[in-house]
């Protein structure tokens, strides 16, 4: 059973497995993000101009504190931009309320984190199913089976996170992120807590999601080897993007 058969065809008709559109699904212009530290505003992003096309996979690299995670959180709608423009699938995030950004995140964005961030009280199945529940479509057993089989989780679904290896936990996290078929998958150093073997498995899965399903993927990483799995690498330093070169 191919997973492509289960993917909904979006009304915009932009996700076509294996193909990329030139139309950006993500676009920031002069994006600023300031954090308040005491009485001082500390800029994490200083006028970032960044675009990601439909179906593209982009790795964002840079030293710690350069603003990579801030960029991810802002384009994912978890944090509000201080200045500038953030377009996500045609929606201007800076004009949206917290509730509107939550709704957009629910329908269009999936997150994968370095620390997996699974809910410790739920089983692997529960962790994936809760994303479906929050999405509002209810539990879809067909979709659930396809995703968990794709990620090799079928035999581990009744286990709690504490009973899973790091690689398994991250695969559960990926399953949770894609179970509602978001247009964009944002991964914040997803291999940061994994050994090289599990890192490779996770990276291959992200690439498979991108190549086979046309999933737009933006990943933050410190690992230069990980960038080989992505179409494009973007470097950040001091809150700005300093270049953007193809990985190969």
């Amino acid at each position, binding site marked *: 059973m191919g997973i492509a058969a289960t993917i909904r065809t979006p009304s915009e008709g932009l996700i076509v497995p294996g193909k990329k559109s030139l139309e950006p699904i993500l676009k920031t212009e002069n994006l600023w993000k300031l954090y308040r530290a005491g009485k001082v505003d500390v800029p994490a992003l200083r006028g970032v101009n960044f675009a990601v096309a439909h179906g593209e996979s982009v790795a964002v690299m840079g030293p710690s504190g350069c603003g990579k995670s801030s960029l991810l959180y802002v384009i994912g709608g978890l944090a509000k931009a201080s200045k500038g423009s953030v377009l996500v699938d045609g929606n201007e995030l800076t004009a949206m309320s917290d509730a509107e950004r939550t709704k957009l995140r629910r329908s269009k964005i999936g997150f994968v984190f370095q620390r997996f961030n699974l809910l410790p009280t739920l089983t692997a199945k529960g962790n994936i199913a809760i994303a479906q529940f*929050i999405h509002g479509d209810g539990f879809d057993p067909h979709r659930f089976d396809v995703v968990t089989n794709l990620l090799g989780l079928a035999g581990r679904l009744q286990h709690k996170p504490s009973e899973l290896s790091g690689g398994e936990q991250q695969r559960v996290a990926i399953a949770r992120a894609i179970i509602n078929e978001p247009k964009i998958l944002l991964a914040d150093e997803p291999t940061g807590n994994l050994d090289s073997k599990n890192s490779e498995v996770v990276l291959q899965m992200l690439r498979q999601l991108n190549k086979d399903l046309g999933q737009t993927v933006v990943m933050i990483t410190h690992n230069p080897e990980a960038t080989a799995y992505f179409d494009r690498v973007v470097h950040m330093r001091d809150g700005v993007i300093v270049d953007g070169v193809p990985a190969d």
Partner: protein
Amino acid sequence: MMSELIVRNLLHRPLRTLIGVLAVAVEVALVVLIVGLTSGLLTETAKRIEGIGADVMLQPPAASVFIGMTGAPMPIKIADKLAELKYVQAVAPTLLQFSSQGGVDVVYGIDAESFRAVSGGFVFLQGHDMEGADDLLVDDLAAAAKHIKVGDTYKLLNHDWHVAAIIEHGKGARLFVPVATLQDLVGAPDKASIFWLKCTRPEHTEDVMDEIRHLLPGYTVRPVSAMLSLMTSTNIPGLQSFINAMIALAVAIGLLVIFLTMYTTVIERTRDIGVLKSLGAGRVFIVRALLTESAGLCLMGIVAGVGLSYAVRAAFLVGFPTLSILITPVWILRAAGIALVGAILGASYPAWMASRKDAVEALSYD
């Protein structure tokens, strides 16, 4: 899915859940038992008065329905006048004396013959009726509670009484002595606190009461059948306030413990809240999840509280057989409602706090 999340969260920290459940259980049990004890004692007292078998009771002007609080300001000779009234079959003058010796009791000083005529007589479980001036009749519950046996000498009102009989409970008081002896002991010769009247037929009660009102204007005349409805906490000055204060205290305990439980829960689950927000959970979802969890914890506490109430009642009745704790479905439901409202209120601020958490900060929480 929500219910699974709630159940698993509650099971995740069993000790914390147990403490929350116990707090609610104590809250529910306190409400049920305080009300049950109050209404139980009043109802049981009213039933005992009704059990005398009289149709009408006559008390001094402005006398309380709580007859133990009445002194002895009426001449006993009134009984002769009352006995002459049409439709009156028997009159039993009774002197009431409050005693705190060996427990709180109201002692009835009775004339055995007239009291028998009104009440139909005691059921003697052991011993015999009053024969001597110092004879004491004790009901079976008081005898069990005070470990009194027939033939014992029992000190009451600074007087040594001979326990003549153990009688079946339900005829007004638990302790009965000869009225003349009691009059001497309390310095109220030829006085009575209350007159019990037996009508020739129960339907003549109103006629008899009307006649008494003409004969003794201003005196308090009541049908004994109304005692059950009159003996309520609202008729005792201050009692309802005391009950309300105790209920408020119980609610405060439950509310504060639930607040603390949910507050620590929210702090512990800060990262989880960030995760839920990253998945697209809105504020309503977060608030609903925490309030539902609080309600679930409260429901377990309610069940435990009802069980605790019955267990405490059973234990009390073993230790204090004369106590009566009336647990009613109405008050169980009220206590449950009070606990549920308290739990929701207690969880409201932590839930609101959780819903307002910054998702990015929550995700980086250690």
